[in-house]
Structure formats: C-alpha cells, structure tokens
C-alpha cells in the first residue's frame, strides 16, 4: 500500500483555526488552573491568611489610607477632559485640507466648536456643583448647611 504524504499547505490552511485554538487555550488554561487548584488545595479558612503582610510585624491597620474624595474627583475630571482631546486630533489633521477643498468655514469649524461648547457646559456644571473645589472655606460650609 502506498501512502502519499502531502505536505500540508500552511497558507491554504485556515489561519483562523489557530486563532480559535489560541482563544480556546487561553480560556481553558485559567479555567483548568482554577479547577485543578480547587481540587487539590486543602481548604482551611483562617482570618490570619487574609491579613495584610507587613514583613512579619503585626499589622497596625488596613492597607489603604483614605484620600480626600476631591482627589479622585479631580483625577476623574482630568481623565475625561484630557481624553476628549483625542477627538480634536483627527479634526486638526483634516482641518487644513478641508479649508483647501473649499469646504465652508461653518462646516469645517462649526462641529468642533459645538463639541467644545458641550464640553464647556459640562465643565461649567462640574465647577458650579463643586467638583473641582479642593477645600471649602468656612463661609462656604456655613452656606451649605441647611
């Protein structure tokens, strides 16, 4: 009997089999590890296991120190407003070409002005509602008190 081995043509093979297999493996591995460790590990629940490790010293408190809430607020505002600038970027790239192609200024500039205006409304609102207020003066505290 003659068996002919044909070298499998890699380019003809569906590339996405590999991708699918990878996806599968990528999911199976964590699940498998979780399953194996679940089966193997002895379960001895103990509070000290979950305690914070401080170089063998007895821990003196939680791992987290509370920051002032305003710290996060400002950070959040920064993230949001900072990232919005990525939307300015493609506009900036296309702006000169648009003007060169005799697109009216209103159509070239208008949408971006509108966009910025909306952002400004948001910023104004955040400002007015005190989101950017790092600390309050005693007078403000007084007026806030009902």
């Amino acid at each position, binding site marked *: 009997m003659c068996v002919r081995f044909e070298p499998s043509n890699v380019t003809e093979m569906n*590339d996405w089999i*590999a*991708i699918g297999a*990878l*996806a599968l493996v*990528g*999911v199976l591995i*964590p*699940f498998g590890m*979780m399953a194996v460790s679940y089966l193997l590990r002895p379960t001895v629940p103990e509070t000290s296991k979950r305690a914070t490790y401080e170089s063998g010293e007895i821990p003196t408190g939680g791992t987290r120190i509370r920051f002032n*809430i305003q710290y*996060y607020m400002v950070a*959040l505002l920064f*993230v*949001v407003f*900072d*990232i*919005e600038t*990525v*939307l300015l*970027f*493609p506009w900036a790239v296309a702006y000169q070409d648009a003007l060169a192609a005799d697109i009216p200024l209103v159509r070239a500039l208008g949408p971006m002005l509108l966009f910025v205006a909306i952002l400004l409304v948001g910023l104004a609102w955040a400002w007015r509602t005190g989101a950017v207020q790092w600390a309050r003066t005693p007078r403000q505290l007084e007026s806030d008190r009902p």
Partner: protein
Amino acid sequence: MTVDVQYYVLLSMAVFCIGLFGVLTRRNALLFLMSVELMLNAANINLIAFAFYHGNLTGQLFALFTMALAAAEVAVGLGIILVLYRNFRDVDVTVPTTMRW
C-alpha cells in the same frame, strides 16, 4: 518589512484573553476594570492593524472613539467603586451579594 496582519490579530487575541482572564479571576474591582480596559485595547490593536491592512482610516478613527469612551467608562466605574467602598467598606466585587436568586 511589514508584519502580516494575522500577527496583529494574534497579539490582540492574546491581549483580549489576558483581559478576560483578569475579569474572571480578579476580585478587586479596580483590577476588574483594568482587565476590561485591556480587552478594549485589544480591540484597538485590531482596529488600527486592520485600518492599515484595508488602507482606510475608519478603524483608526474608531479606535480614537473607543479610547474616549473607555475613559468615560472608567470615570463612571471609578465613581461606582467609590460608593461601593463607602457602603461595603471593601472594593472586593464578590462581597456585595445582598441580592441573589
């Protein structure tokens, strides 16, 4: 020499799966969020690679939108995690189980 597009896809798949792994195993809400961001960035890799492959800019533009929206999502997510901490004294996503079944 350009890299074939399928390698980008492999890369993005890998990033996506890592993100998914994080989503499934991390109990810390912040890490959960980061894992999701990883998945979004996997999509961005795809988009940019394919934009290059197809020779149009649509994908790149969409990637920019994805980034902006991801940022917004993070902002909302962090806000929710803050109130979560205030109410449950923890950012472990498996702790709040008052509602089930």
